[in-house]
């Protein structure tokens, strides 16, 4: 029996995955302890963590988190559902596509943040405005992906439906929808990410309210880098969490696919 080289043992892969993050963490610790970096600019890891604990203890962090997540999910739900519905409409209706297509393509290019003044007027700059902004951000990717998903239904699927003399409804139910589902999911995943990005943007550009964005600004203005780094870590963790959930959902719901 030949022994597998070290690089192929069971530990090798996890080790590789963790290597870089661990090295970075170590470097961070070392530089903080050895005073290599100005502690104002890069506080030590334990400072960041203890700040995190403190903020959780006094309830600030959790309130902020809760508020941001609530906004995010509300906006995402509205924007993604509207986007998916529109994508289906545009995909299946040639007329709709020719009427709305070019406008939507241009709209995609206008920076989201340009809409802030108008949204502030229509919905106020408070909660409603922020949620509207987030919904707008979630709308775009779900629209594009669903639309593309419908367009990409292979011609032979439609031929099959014709051969089997499916009604339109049956075609939708049995053939089209399962074919589009992966695309819709890609859209939802993207919408989730964009919605989260927009949540932060909304909190930075609109009126003050509890939220992670506010905590970040607070840290920046008061020059408390530990707070800033803490919020960045949190943002990353939450983003990763969303991604994980989305992937999980995708695998679960699409596991019956064979191709």
């Amino acid at each position, binding site marked *: 029996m030949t022994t597998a080289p070290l690089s192929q043992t069971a530990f090798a892969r996890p080790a590789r995955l963790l290597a870089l993050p661990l090295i970075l963490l170590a470097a961070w610790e070392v530089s903080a302890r050895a005073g290599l970096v100005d502690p104002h600019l890069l506080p030590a890891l334990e400072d960041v963590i203890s700040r995190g604990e403190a903020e959780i203890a006094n309830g600030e962090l959790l309130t902020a988190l809760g508020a941001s997540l609530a906004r995010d999910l509300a906006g995402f739900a509205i924007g993604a559902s509207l986007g998916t519905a529109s994508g289906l409409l545009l995909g299946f209706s040639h007329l709709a596509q020719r009427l709305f297509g070019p406008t939507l393509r241009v709209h995609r290019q206008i920076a989201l943040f340009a809409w802030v003044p108008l949204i502030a007027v229509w919905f106020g700059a408070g909660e409603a405005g922020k949620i509207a902004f987030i919904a707008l951000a979630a709308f775009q990717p779900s629209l594009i992906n669903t639309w593309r998903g419908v367009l990409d239904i292979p011609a032979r699927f439609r031929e099959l439906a014709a051969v089997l003399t499916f009604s339109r409804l049956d075609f939708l139910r049995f053939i089209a929808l399962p074919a589009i589902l992966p695309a819709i999911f890609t859209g939802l995943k993207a919408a989730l990410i964009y919605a989260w*990005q927009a949540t932060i943007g909304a909190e930075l550009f609109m009126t003050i309210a509890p939220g992670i964005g506010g905590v970040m600004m607070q840290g920046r203005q008061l020059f408390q880098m530990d707070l800033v780094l803490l919020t960045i870590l949190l943002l990353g963790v939450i983003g990763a969490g969303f991604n994980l959930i989305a992937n999980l959902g995708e695998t679960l719901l699409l596991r019956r696919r064979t191709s």
Partner: protein
Amino acid sequence: MARIPPQLLTQSLQSSAALAADQHAALLLGGYHPTPTGDALMQETITEAGVVRARIPALDNLAAKDHQQPSAVYRLAIFVVTRLGPGLILPLVLLAVWQLSATYGWLPDQILPAPALVLDVLQERISDGSLWDDTSISLLRVLRGFTLGAGIGLALGGALAASPRLHDYLNPLFLAVSQVPILGWVPLLILVIGIDEGLKNSLVALSVFIPVTLGTFQGIRDVPFAYREVGQVLTFSRLQSLTTIILPAAVPAIFTGLREGLSNGWQTLVAVELLASTEGLGFQMAYGRQLFQLELVIAAMLVIGLIGFLFDFLLGRIETHLQRWQVAA
């Protein structure tokens, strides 16, 4: 074969060249190169289905004369109306609604200034050159950031696809970084880099880099194994395999990444210019808002949208050009 009048003969020689070019293109799509038969009067063409069709270009020419090609101007007009027409309906409707809102005050005119006012502002800024100044500054920033981000993204995406080991090492870090919303980096970067060009370059580059890396990685990784096998069978070198097989197959995904990257970059630039800048289109929007002159905001929005559209259009064209070998499914 009927006796062909001499005039038609010379005509046919000329037109057959033109027709040959069309056929050439048609056959290329069908994946077959025609071999010249040396006979100018009659050409054999072998279509995809293997049917031999003999063509007598001279006679074709006769037939074509009956259906004269309409003039170029007429064709352009038809094109504009039928292809662009429907797409213009919605914008025109929106414009009409906008004008009505201004006339009847549905929305306060401080918030939605009349179209005429926006037009005025645009004219003003074009004539005094300030629009060009701001636009070119913003454009340069985006191009710099895009080149940086896309360059690194393409290289990294390719490297990650090529080496699973490298992917293991770098992917966790990449995932972590890509989860943080771009604006989330602003407080950190402002404190570290400042609010100058460095901030804009790095944020734009970052927002471009992420989708481009992902697109390149997925595109290359998802090249079907069958394609690679062909490369092996034909004993291609790695470079040949890369340029002839892998990259062309990965083009759709790579370009999706590039388009998303460019779109992201443009949005990020505007957002950063909104937050901290002294010139540029995003700055104009912020400035207009500060001075309660939202026509400046709208004017800037229009220019931004137009440029973004052009970017997307260009990239789409390039993608189509690179994909011309594709057989339509």
